């Protein structure tokens, strides 16, 4: 029986290989041969397709009918080999057809058909060009040119085809319809010769300079054609043609065009030219001076920032950011802003703030007329419409459309990153943007500020404005601001104090920000130790003579202050002298409980709490790492002890490892991983040597026997689960580990088979299981063939030796063999990867502390806000799910939207989503459980991708892959209980 089984498996397998091998050959054989060889599918469709179309089209009595047929035809895909036939038939009808709309449809179908993958359209090109000759309708002409464009883009490799198409396009450039001219220009842009050599070669037949042809249409009477001309030019540039500098003048004229799309395209063209010829010199009209082209272009694009159309403004503002070669004085002009009132010069709010700051006065704006205008202005010298770069960013940042403002902020960011002096100058404006009315703009400016933060130091009044935003109700804004404060330079101790006060205010208002605020203060402290030092007595409220009451250790605000101080004290050895006794105690406590926030300190009179991990010591010499390795060695070395001894040793080691993981956060992943592995091994050994599987106790009392079996199967199931956890919950798992994990899983499956064999009476179900198991062994061998040599003496190794015997023997024998092999196989050594992190999730919201049930009407939905942090999860968008468990055992799996995940830092993710709950009415409130799950799919696992990449064979790729399927889920967060109460609906 088993032999038969095996034969079938192998047969199927080889067949698949054959088919795909044929497939690969087929590309080279002629269509006729192909027809003979290939599967029945193709024969079914091919002749009918074109013939049916032909019949249909002949049947069609009116153009409307024909159109209908064509539309229907277009819905179905056409095979590669029948494309040409279909095209011929379509062309035939094209010539016969009188109605323009049908011809139009045919033309568009031609384009669609030439797009078919694998079809080379050069055979139909001549026909397509011929159709152009006699066509009268402009629309059809345009559509035909579009088809030619498709053909051309498929045949870009062939220069003569391109030349021909370009010639055709040039011929139709004089057409009176804008649509045709548009398409011609597009065609020239996409296919025009780019390489100099080809252009020369072709000069004899068509001495045409594409740039000149396109340039001539910059002045076309139709704005759409003008736009198309500019776009074609840009297309040429993208394809690698160096545009001539001569068109710069033309492009500048287009900036004053009446139509926004022309201006928008022209701005792009000018930008491209400025990048191509930044250093060439252009004259300034109406004067004798000359300036660099990039400066001139910068001025012109700046001018467009105050264009009438917001599309153009956005375009211009965006491009400004990437013009980094511009001279600094032009750059600084963009922030220039002069105010006046009644012809007298007025200072801007920025200038006033700066003055107040330098004069030492703090608050402002108490008096009326504080902003009273100062000196008279010479009327001749005022320029109301700024020319060039003047005030471009001032305009952009004050634009009424937020899209423009965002673009301006982005541009500001890019320019400031490359120029520190500009960064310093634009600070005032950026800080202003923190108060924009649109949240996105605020967020963008905060991010921008963070990006340039190493170039800047905030003044106190600026800091004041920045900190005011901490009260924003949007969590994103606050967190972005915390990130910003982490890397901000503050100039004075008042600034630090102000920041602390505002952060504490934030903490009381939004207690959920705790972690983020602590982290922020940690960096603030470590960046400014000298500024924190004078503040310490005040912050700790110590007094030179009196003892002050000991603050509450659990107060988050107090912890925040301590985090700031301890981090400052790290590089300021004099600071601990100012601490009072309880501070030291609190330090010890915090160092232990919040070790990621509190650094080790060298405190007077005591030893360091934990030995400093100096960078010179490599991880391998680290004692805890050593310990880990030693304990593992110990386990691996003991191969053949009595089962009892092994079990005990394993239990101890697992305990040690778990404890180690708790103590050393950086080793936690590693320790957990190995502990899980050992746990699996332990379970395996326990079951194997348990009495359930002892042959001689086959006839024990039935109840005991059943219990034993239940235990065994539970153990097998647990091992399976643990292997999935090992494979999918840790980031940094390499293929070496994957092999071991899969091996363990195989063992677990073998165990399952054995247990089932012992419990089930019949033989029939066993057949299926055996077959499946053998398949798995086979696929294991295929997947990990390269790793097999390292698995000497393992379960799989032995199993593969016995494979020929297994496939021919009966299930009961198979089970017997498996059992002995399992028992005899050695314990595989689990190599440790460099870095291993366990995925974890923490649900911040809902907190699960509320006693007020969430009431809603049954049958309707209620939205529950879920906020969670995820660490070390790869691809959270695909894998993380939310599970809701109702008290009646009903479980609901929710897939959060990809947009709900934010990525605040490497390896960290944040899930902020809404979960919709609904249930029938309850009599009283009850708790539901919310937890996060990690979905996995072993087909998409690393092992599978590995084979896909390896050259082993292609057959696996041919197998249907379940799309986006979820094989199972692993819970990886603590469940949170939410109190809900669906009320019965009122009638």
């Amino acid at each position: 029986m088993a032999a038969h089984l095996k034969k079938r498996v192998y047969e199927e397998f080889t067949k698949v290989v054959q088919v795909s091998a044929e497939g690969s050959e087929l590309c080279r054989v002629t269509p006729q041969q192909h027809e003979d060889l290939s599967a029945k599918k193709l024969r079914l469709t091919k002749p009918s397709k074109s013939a049916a179309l032909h019949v249909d089209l002949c049947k069609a009595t009116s153009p409307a009918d024909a159109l209908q047929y064509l539309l229907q035809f277009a819905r179905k895909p056409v095979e590669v080999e029948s494309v040409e036939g279909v095209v011929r038939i379509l062309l035939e009808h094209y010539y016969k057809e009188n109605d323009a709309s049908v011809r139009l449809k045919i033309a568009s179908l031609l384009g669609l058909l030439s797009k078919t993958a694998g079809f080379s359209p050069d055979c139909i090109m001549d026909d397509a060009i011929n159709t152009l000759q006699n066509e009268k309708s402009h629309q059809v002409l345009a559509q035909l040119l579009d088809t030619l464009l498709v053909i051309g883009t498929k045949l870009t490799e062939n220069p003569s085809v391109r030349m021909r198409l370009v010639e055709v396009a040039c011929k139709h450039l004089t057409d009176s319809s804008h649509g045709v001219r548009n398409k011609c220009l597009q065609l020239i842009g996409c296919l025009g010769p780019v390489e100099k050599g080809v252009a020369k070669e072709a000069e004899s037949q068509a001495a045409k300079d594409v740039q000149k042809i396109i340039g001539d249409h910059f002045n076309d009477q139709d704005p759409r054609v003008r736009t198309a001309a500019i776009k074609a030019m840009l297309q040429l540039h993208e394809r690698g043609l160096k545009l001539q500098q001569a068109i710069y003048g033309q492009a500048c004229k287009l900036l004053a065009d009446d139509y926004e799309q022309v201006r928008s395209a022209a701005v792009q063209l000018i930008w491209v030219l400025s990048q191509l010829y930044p250093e060439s010199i252009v004259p300034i009209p109406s004067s004798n001076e000359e300036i660099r082209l990039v400066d001139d272009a910068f001025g012109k694009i700046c001018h467009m920032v105050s264009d009438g159309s917001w599309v153009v403004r956005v375009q211009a503002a965006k491009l400004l950011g990437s013009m980094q070669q511009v001279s600094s004085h032009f750059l600084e002009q963009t922030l220039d802003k002069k105010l006046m009132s009644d012809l007298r010069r007025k200072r801007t709010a920025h200038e006033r703030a700066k003055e107040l700051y330098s004069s030492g006065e703090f608050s402002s704006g108490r008096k009326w007329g504080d902003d009273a205008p100062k000196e008279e202005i010479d009327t001749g010298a005022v320029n109301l419409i700024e020319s060039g770069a003047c005030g471009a960013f001032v305009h952009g940042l004050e634009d009424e459309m937020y899209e423009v403002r965002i673009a301006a902020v982005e541009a500001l960011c890019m320019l400031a990153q490359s120029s520190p002096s500009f960064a310093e100058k634009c600070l005032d404006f950026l800080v202003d943007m923190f108060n924009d009315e649109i949240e996105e703009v605020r967020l963008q400016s905060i991010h921008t500020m963070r990006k340039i933060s190493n170039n800047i130091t905030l003044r106190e009044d600026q800091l004041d404005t920045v900190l005011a935003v901490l009260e924003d109700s949007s969590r994103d804004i606050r967190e972005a601001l915390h990130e910003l404060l982490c890397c901000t330079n503050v100039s004075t101790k008042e600034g630090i104090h102000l920041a602390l006060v505002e952060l504490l205010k934030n903490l009381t208002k939004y207690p959920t920000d705790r972690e983020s605020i602590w982290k922020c203060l940690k960096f603030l402290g470590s960046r400014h130790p000298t500024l924190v030092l004078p503040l310490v007595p005040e912050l700790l409220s110590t007094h030179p003579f009196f003892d002050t009451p000991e603050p509450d250790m659990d107060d988050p605000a107090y912890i925040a202050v301590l985090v700031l101080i301890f981090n400052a004290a790290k590089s300021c050895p004099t600071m601990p002298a100012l601490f009072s006794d309880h501070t030291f105690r609190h330090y010890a406590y915090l160092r232990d409980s919040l070790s990621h926030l509190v650094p080790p300190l060298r405190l007077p009179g005591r030893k360091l709490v934990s030995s400093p991990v100096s960078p010179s010591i490599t991880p391998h010499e680290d004692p805890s790492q050593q310990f880990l390795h030693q304990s593992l060695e110990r386990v691996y070395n003991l191969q053949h002890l009595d089962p009892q001894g092994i079990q005990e040793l394993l239990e101890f080691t697992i305990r040690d490892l778990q404890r180690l993981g708790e103590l050393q956060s950086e080793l936690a992943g590693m320790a957990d991983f190995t502990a899980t592995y050992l746990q699996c091994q332990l379970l395996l050994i326990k079951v194997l040597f348990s009495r359930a599987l002892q042959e001689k106790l086959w006839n024990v009392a039935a109840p005991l026997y059943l219990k034993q079996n239940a235990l065994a199967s539970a153990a097998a199931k647990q091992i399976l689960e643990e292997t999935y956890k090992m494979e999918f919950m840790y980031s940094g798992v390499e293929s070496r580990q994957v092999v071991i994990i899969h091996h363990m899983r195989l063992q677990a499956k073998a165990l399952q088979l054995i247990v089932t064999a012992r419990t089930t009476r019949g033989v029939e179900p066993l057949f299926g299981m055996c077959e499946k198991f053998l398949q798995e062994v086979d696929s294991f061998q295929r997947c990990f063939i390269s790793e097999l040599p390292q698995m000497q003496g393992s379960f799989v190794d032995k199993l593969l030796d016995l494979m020929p015997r297994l496939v021919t023997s009966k299930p009961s024998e198979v089970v017997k063999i498996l059992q002995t092999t399992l028992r005899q196989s050695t314990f595989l050594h689990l190599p440790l990867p460099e870095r291993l992190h366990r995925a974890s999730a923490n649900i911040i919201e809902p907190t699960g502390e509320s006693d007020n049930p969430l009431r809603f009407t049954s049958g309707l939905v209620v939205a529950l806000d879920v906020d969670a942090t995820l660490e070390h999860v790869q691809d959270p968008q695909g894998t993380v799910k939310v599970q809701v468990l109702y008290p009646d055992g009903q479980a609901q799996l929710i897939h959060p939207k990809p947009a709900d995940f934010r990525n605040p830092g490497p390896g960290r993710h944040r899930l902020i989503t809404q979960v919709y709950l609904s249930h029938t009415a309850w009599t009283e409130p009850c708790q539901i459980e919310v937890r996060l799950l990690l979905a996995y799919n072993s087909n998409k696992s690393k092992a599978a991708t590995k084979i896909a990449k390896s050259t082993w064979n292609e057959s696996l790729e041919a197998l249907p892959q379940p799309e986006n399927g979820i094989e199972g889920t692993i819970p990886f967060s603590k469940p949170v209980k939410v109190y809900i109460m669906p009320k019965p609906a009122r009638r």
Partner: protein
Amino acid sequence: MPEIKVTPLGAGQDVGRSCILVSIAGKNVMLDCGMHMGYNDDRRFPDFSYITQNGRLTDFLDCVIISHFHLDHCGALPYFSEMVGYDGPIYMTHPTKAICPILLEDYRKITVDKKGETNFFTSQMIKDCMKKVVAVHLHQTVQVDEELEIKAYYAGHVLGAAMFQIKVGCESVVYTVSMHSSSYRCAAWIDKCRPDLLITESTYATTIRDSKRCRERDFLKKVHETVERGGKVLIPVFALGRAQELCILLETFWERMNLKAPIYFSTGLTEKANHYYKLFITWTNQKIRKTFVQRNMFEFKHIKAFDRAFADNPGPMVVFATPGMLHAGQSLQIFRKWAGNEKNMVIMPGYCVQGTVGHKILSGQRKLEMEGRQILEVKMQVEYMSFSAHADAKGIMQLIRQAEPRNVLLVHGEAKKMEFLKQKIEQEFHVNCYMPANGETTTIFTNPSIPVDISLGLLKRETAIGLLPDAKKPKLMHGTLIMKDNSFRLVSPEQALKELGLAEHQLRFTCRVHIQDPRKEHETVLRVYNHLKGVLKDYSVQHLPDGSITVESILIQATAHSEDQGTKVLLVSWTYQDEELGSYLTSLLKKGLPQSTS
């Protein structure tokens, strides 16, 4: 020469009482019909007798256009339409039409009920007047009559403010007043309509303002700090416009900062106005429009209606109260209650007229003498916050840049300031700029292009002849111009003849050319034929069997001279249409035939 005449009846080199007469291509339009705040006598309304001494105004005006609901732009409307008498159409935008009567009624009440004036318009008159109003949508082209059309453009943040384009034929005028830059610059937008004349306000002709964001931030910071201290904030406002703007500002801020202190606004007018703001949400700025998907911003969450009793409530609060200059009413009452506490604050968001309490406290007076010799000591903080919403010089310049007018006319501003702006406009845009005083007429000559209809057949035929069309060069065309019933048409000669019922006359030129040639006639003809064939390669030259030659349609025949057989007379005959070729041919033949070898 066609001309546009503009005469300001008010607002010429002056602020208030906007009323501008425009006559364009025979149509008379009145722009705005406002009252003057500063006068209580006849001068408060424009002098409508300028338009006509006797007889109804309807005969002299084609339409009236109101730009927005401020009283200095619409205050004289009931007087004008009901008391002076005007029955023609009055155009304004929908929000303006909704809010205008409220303000007019309020104005009437103050004048009649409070000041006890008689001979003023009544409530009924306001209603009757509003019945004559035609509401327009933005960018809707309204055909006032067959020739006159008007079109409204969005002009900014005063609800319903609009710029109007007035167009007759191809002459056009754009009128814009008080572009309130919504939150930022450049809120008013107009396409490149290139009008002959742009009439613009110039209140802030000599001012360039700082960004509004700074001012807003200052304002919010002050309010926030006071509320946090537990103080009360009083913001005296006028009912419309700025009050709503500030409400939105505070509402958003409260929302953003998660604040809990109550905000109140005084009931009555403001409430009514808020209702209209709620309705006309599409007329507001981007932020408000964007949030509308979730909720209407004017459905205030944090702002509630004020009750007199609330003023004594403990704890922080913010109150918007009318009127804006603290000279009477609710705002003054609240002010007296709160003035004594230094924790409180009053924020004056606008200008205060001399003599009002608002002006006094702004100029730093701390002890105020109230009625009844009572001395009120002001301990509360006094802040001034400029939220003026008129476009500044830059805004005006930008509008000019966008619209590209051929002439600019400044109104609604002080003469001195106008002078500066005028000089700038002339210098930077090289266009003429005018600033007429009240009653002074400015005449602008226009050079309108006259459209002519051409039949498609003729156009196609003519473009097909000759070289390909070149966009850069003018093209010569043949056709007949028919001027009939005020319209111009270019048609082909045949059609013109047909339409006019005339028979076609043929005009033929005939010319004799003498050639010395002793040979036989047909030989001469052959020689001429060969010669012409050699010279005129592009034309069809034919030798007909009857011995004549045709070049295109020109006929050449040769006969021997009756007296001298050695001289042959060539008869060249051509029609009028072929004049060019014919005269060329004659001159060619006159030069004689080349001495051929034959």
